């Protein structure tokens, strides 16, 4: 089967199979987003902008990641924790290679599964079955490759005969289950999980957890973004706290979660003081 598809360079020989090499190596990674005020894809506005200042696009830089360093050994499970906007998802998209870095280097050894989470790119008019084949081929799989694991995907997603119905008729839970099932069955070496503990009901979440513990036993590398602390605790042996675009704490899950709690409390305390001051000022 020819499934190992790499768009970047692919190494032959033994170098890649050595397990002491990190599966993920991120060195001084910076990612910038341009926040566009007055942004327009319209030709008219772009043209007017040449003459009138108020139509001109103003760009504000937002550095979502500022010098992130992260080395993950093969077989490690790392939880990325941190408040909203800290850069967790940005880092995940960079590892999935859909976003490009502005500075720094990412080196990945092994195939990376599509980001599992709510709503993989499904076409709503196509049936679940057709979507499975389409999604797997995005990952470079041929029809015969998919056929071999098709039943497992459907069973895991618990879709039964609904699989031949267009996805537009699915419930949110069904779509999420199918998306999760497809991305975990693609047998990648590295799995990226974005808030997967919000997929489906409690029972399905338990099943997901078992599946992921199974992955760990198989020696796969897991990167997990989660707000659910129990998930990180159960599954991961390491956590990284992202705070305003940098990793401020890296180590055992318990210690990092403690740091996270402490920093959140500090921030709230400062925020509380400020509001107290402004309250007294207005009084």
């Amino acid at each position, binding site marked *: 089967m020819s*499934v*190992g598809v*790499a768009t970047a360079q692919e190494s032959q020989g033994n170098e*890649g199979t050595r397990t002491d090499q990190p599966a993920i190596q991120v060195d001084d990674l910076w990612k910038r987003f341009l926040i566009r005020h007055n942004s327009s*894809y319209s030709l008219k506005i772009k043209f007017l902008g040449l003459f009138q200042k108020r139509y001109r696009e103003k760009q504000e830089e937002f550095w979502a990641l500022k010098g992130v360093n992260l080395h993950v050994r093969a077989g490690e499970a790392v939880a990325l924790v941190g408040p909203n906007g800290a850069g967790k998802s940005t880092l995940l998209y960079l590892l999935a290679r859909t976003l490009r870095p502005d500075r720094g280097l990412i080196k*990945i050894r092994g195939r990376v599964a*599509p980001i599992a989470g709510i709503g993989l*790119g499904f076409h709503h008019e*196509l049936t679940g079955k057709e979507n499975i084949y389409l999604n797997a081929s995005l990952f470079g799989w041929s029809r015969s490759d998919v056929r071999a694991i098709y039943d497992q995907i459907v069973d895991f997603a618990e879709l039964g005969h609904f699989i031949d119905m267009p996805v537009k008729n699915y419930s949110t839970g069904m779509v999420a289950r199918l998306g999760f099932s497809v991305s975990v069955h693609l047998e990648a070496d590295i799995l990226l999980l974005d808030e997967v503990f919000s997929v489906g009901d409690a029972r399905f979440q338990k099943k997901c957890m078992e599946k992921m513990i199974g992955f760990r036993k198989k020696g796969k590398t897991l990167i997990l973004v989660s707000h659910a602390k129990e998930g990180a605790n159960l599954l991961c042996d390491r956590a990284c706290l992202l705070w305003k675009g940098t990793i401020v704490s890296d180590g055992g899950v318990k210690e990092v979660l403690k740091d996270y709690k402490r920093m959140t409390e500090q921030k709230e305390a400062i925020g509380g003081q400020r509001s107290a001051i402004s309250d007294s000022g207005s009084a």
Partner: protein
Amino acid sequence: MKPDAAQAVPIYEIRAGDRGLDLARNLYSTLRYWPLVQNLVAKQLKLKYRGSALGFLWSLLNPLSMVLVYTIVFSYVMRFPVENYALFLVAGVIHWEFFSTATSSATRAIIEDRELIRKVDFPKIILPASLVVFELIQLILAFVAFMLIYLVLGGSFWWGQLLYPVALLLQFAFVVGIAALISAATVFLRDLQHLVQIVLRLMFWLTPIIYPLSSVPPKTIPYFQLNPMTSYVVIYRAMLYDHAWPQAHWWALAIGFAAVSLGAGVVLFSYLSPRFAEEV
């Protein structure tokens, strides 16, 4: 899929500033995604014909209605002095439709698949390319239907028609290039969706489809030659209607336009595609 010793672990190295211009490597990895092309083409066929009673016939009815209207207007009302006008028209119209439908749907090729582009890394040029393959299949089906009534319309067979696949291949390369160019540019300039419609309409009347090139003032012919579609239409019509060997300079133009369009399309697409995930 079983990880065995023979299968090397892929290594990806992503550095800031990579522009994905390594065309040889991209071509290789793109070819390995052939199943994706198959699935995307199948998807479009299913989406287009699912739930419609007439299915593929709808694709024929569009050019057919066009041929009917123009035949009535130009052959009976305006009395255009062209023999076998319906045949003359069909030879141009079906190939124009291939270009025009592919070009106008290319404006949506990237911006409509936002979710896929954000979640998975794959050679994105497959999106416009598979769309052109889909339109090519439509053209081939239309061509087969055309051949079934070819003799009724007064056509006859000629050995020069054996070169039809070559002309088709050249036009295919040309259309792939245009589709890549437009699909990528539309991500950054959404107005193109509307602009393309207008340009296509103008181009239709500036291409000798409903009139022969011989009816335009000889002085203006060099300007007509600037229009890529002129060369393809002239070649198709020479084969299918005039039964004459298309002149060498038309072939040169057809090859030239195909090469320039494909080259420019692929280069611009590779240059812009790393930014798609942020812009769609």
